Each structure stands twice: as structure tokens, then as C-alpha cells.
């Protein structure tokens, strides 16, 4: 974190499953470089022995009763699907 941040935009966009145009690549590189430069100052904080906070008020082990409840009807659950057939969502072939 102490060295100048290097954001490999190609790699990160691949991880994020996000196609970027050349113009977006150039613009985001510059803008995110500025943001990362700002974020570098966090390296100055002494966090020795400090526990991380994931939630302000940790609520752990929330259990629900294991009972069946009515869910959405299939038609309602699939209403927003971009493509469907026979109560199934249609997707591109993933195995040749």
C-alpha cells in the first residue's frame, strides 16, 4: 500500500465481469487513480491490535424456525426473467 497504487483495469474488469470500452478504460484509469491516491493516506493509521468492524452492531447466529412457508408462485418468480420456456430460464449454452 505504500508504493504508488497500480490498478490493472483489464484484470479487475475481468474479475468484475464488466466489458469496458476503450474510452471507459482511459477515463476510469485516470479517475480511479485519483481516488486510490486519496485512499493511500489510510496507510498512515496505526491499526496494530485493532479488530475489524464488519457491522456496527454485530448480530450473530440469527436462526429461523425450520417450517415451510408459501413462496412466490412460479409465474410471479419468473415474471422478470429476460427469457423463459416451460417454467425455466433460458440461458446460452455453457457446455459444448
Amino acid at each position, binding site marked *: 500500500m505504500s508504493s504508488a497504487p497500480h490498478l490493472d483495469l483489464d484484470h479487475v474488469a475481468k474479475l468484475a465481469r464488466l466489458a*469496458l470500452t476503450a474510452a471507459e478504460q482511459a477515463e476510469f484509469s485516470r479517475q480511479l487513480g485519483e481516488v486510490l491516491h486519496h485512499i493511500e493516506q489510510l496507510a498512515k493509521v496505526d491499526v496494530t491490535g485493532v479488530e475489524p468492524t464488519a457491522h456496527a*452492531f454485530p448480530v450473530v447466529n440469527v436462526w429461523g424456525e425450520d417450517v415451510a412457508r408459501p413462496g412466490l408462485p412460479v409465474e410471479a418468480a419468473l415474471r422478470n426473467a429476460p427469457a423463459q420456456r416451460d417454467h425455466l430460464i433460458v*440461458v446460452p449454452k455453457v457446455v459444448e
Partner: protein
Amino acid sequence: MADELFFKSIAELGDLLAARTVSATELTRAVLARTQAVEGRLHAFNSRDEAEALAQAGASDARRAAGQARGPLDGIPVGLKDVIAVAGQPLTASSRMLANFVSPYDATVTARLKAAGAVFWGRLNCDEFAMGSSTENSAFGPTSNPWDLTRVPGGSSGGSAAALAAGAAIATLGSDTGGSIRQPAALCGVVGLKPTYGLVSRYGLVAFASSLDQIGPLTRTVEDAAIMLGALAGHDPLDSTSFPADIPDYRAELKRRPGPWRLGIPKEYFGAGLDPEVQAAVERAMDFYRAQGCTLQEVSLPHTQYCLDTYYIIATAEASSNLARYDGVRYGHRSTAAKDAVDLYRQSRAEGFGAEVKRRIILGTYVLSSGYYDAYYLRAQKVRTLIRQDFLNAYREVDALLTPTSPVPAFKLGEKSDPLALYLCDIYTIGVNLAGLPAVSVPCGFTAGGLPIGLQLIGRPFDEANLLALAGAYERGHDWHRRTPSL
């Protein structure tokens, strides 16, 4: 102008409805007509359903006629930020990704407001996926500030604040991840309450950053905020982060808590970048509280300078995870140009998301990625602990903190094109989200140019009753909240 029905408070209208001076149908028609008159200039709404609103108003009138009115919200037109699900209605999060999405179920806050008899009036514009501070990131175009149509209403709940200030709703809901209720409330001259993390269920809220997001009301008065919070708050088994807190009668508690309070002034909140007119208005509010017998003392929140960076690491990391669900498969936009399955994800997301959402997904993916997790994300979570401890330390000596809500009044549409400049709008509000605290913005004056200024009061966790009483004491001594924009 303030005599118009659409500029009255929930409390005032509740009395008129109970006395049968006004019917819910008359009130709803007045709000609908007002909306039609101003919406062309404002663009506060993403979608509206007039027939549905009038049907709900008719049902409210029928309940009242049968002696079955449900309390102060029965028949009150309430607008919802377009990130909160209402069964059968559109839910876009102001994104092309969800342009055609229809909610299959009600959010818990929706179900609670329905049970209280509220009339749902429209889904309000916001920054895309609630990411922004000006509502300019909406895929459907920006909302204007009703006090000056050339300026932003703030964000991300800008439509919620603008519609309320303009009389196009009697109360609205927003969501607040880094200031998204309080900052637009300040810029539009209304009351905005961000409750304690866990007090109000997020079931049915489009997720942005789950350890920070909180739903809350925007209202004309503090009493209205208490009425709305009373309807919204409470444990929900459908939200596993919902906190089983005791819920007092917030409205009744307003009168039972006369003060005086010990108020802390965080010295780090009055530095460079604070507009002099904002500072002067906040200092006059300090004088008011002093004259009421409150003690004011300077306090220090030493990690304040790290709030912005901590926030942008944690919020973007959580956003990148939450928004992974938008892949063009089960719902949302699907690209027709994709070659294979992975390309379907990449192209659907490229076509569906706007620039700011893409930037945040990339930043969040980066800070979570192998080799950078410890240096960025884990470190930010540790600094978050220190930021939270700063607030809890301050509360050993004081009951609440007093600060500006926004460093600047409403700025011009298009003025802040640089992401970092826009992020700096949130410097006084994000610490509250990182620490999970309740905070409220109340109108505390106007600039010489006629723009509203907001005062932020920050309370102890789950102590909304005291926080609202403190805000109510200020409101009773002033009439800023009675001013209305000339639209």
C-alpha cells in the same frame, strides 16, 4: 402558499382527516394536481400510478367512514425512493439494468406503511443504485432542486427530497448509505432522518452496501419524522441484521423529553471546505441551544479525516459483491449481443450500468482482490473500528453531536463532474453510517441566495427518541420549515 393542503404536515393533515374536514381522496387529488403542475420542471418521479393512489385514498375514506381509521398515516400520500419494493409496481433503482423490473413482493417498510393506511404515491428518482450525492447519476435524467431549478437536489435520495419540498408528496422514504437521506434533505430544506443501523428493516430494499444501508423518512417537520419512524421501526425476521430493539412511542416521547442536553461540537467538522454561510447558520443554531440551557463543548473525533477513504473502500467492496447478482440471467437487462455465457454477463452489465456504478464495482472488486484485500479492505474495517470508537468516546461526555449536514448548499447541475469532488459532499455524513448511528438533518436557515441550509444532529445508538426531541426543540424556536419554494 403554506395554506395549501399539499404543503401541510402529516400531523396537521391527520387532524383534518380525523375531523372529516378533508377526505383522503381530496388530499390525494390535491397532491396529484400539484405533482402535475410541477413535475415537468422538477423530474422527481421515475413512475406514478394515479389510479392506484386514488383507489387507496378511497379505501382509506371507506375505513374512516366505518370507524376503522388506522392512525395518523391513514390517507397520507407517501412517495418512495425507487429502490424500495412495492408489489406489482416498477422498481428501477434509476438504472437501465432494472428499467423493466416489476416488484414481485412488498418491502417490509412498504407492508408496514400499508398497514398504517398510507397512500403510495410514486417511485422517486435517485442516483443509480443510490450511488451519488446529486441525483445526476440517474439513468433517467437528473432531478432539479425546487428552490432553484438550475441546481441539484442532493442525493442519492434527491427525488424524495425534491418532491416533498415541492408539495408533490406529504412525506417520502429515502435510503442512506453515506448521507443519502440527510444531504438531500439539507439541500431541499426538509427534515431527513437516518435511523440507527438495524432499527428499520431493509427487506425489499435494493442493496448497495449492506453494512451501511438504512431506510428512513423525509418529512416537513420533526414530529412527522417521529410519526413515520413509529410506523417503520421494529424487528423483522426477514432481515437478519434487524435489531430487536424496544420501540418507544416516538411522537409521545417528543413532549416527554424537554432537555436540556449536553451537546458536543466535533472540531474536525468545522475546517477547510465549509461554506461560510453554512457555518454561520450552524453557529446560530449553537447559540439557540445555549440560550435554551444546553451545555455545548468542543469534542474531537480524531479519525474523521479517514472517514471518506474508509467509506469508499467498504461501500464499493460491498457494492461490487451485491451488484454481482445483475448478470442478465434471472432478471434485469440482458444483452442480445453476447457470444457465450460469460460474454452475456460482461455485455449485460456493460449495457445496463452507468459510469458511476461501473467505477464503484471496479474499485470494490480491486480492494477485495487477491494481494490487495489486507492493504485496503481489512485495513478499512479496522479504521472503521477506530472511527466508531471516536463517536462512542464522545458520548461519554455529551448526549448528541451538532454539525453541518453538508459543507455546501445546493450546487449547480453539472458543476461537479469529477467523482472525487462529489465524494467530498459526504464528509459530514459518512462517519455516522460507518458507526451505525442515528442522525437527523433539520432546516436551519437560508443562504443570501435563498438556498436551504441543514443542521445535523447525531445521537446515541437506538436513542432516536432523544435525538428527535432535541431536533424538535430547535424546530419549535424557528420557522425555517414553514417556508416553501415558489415553483
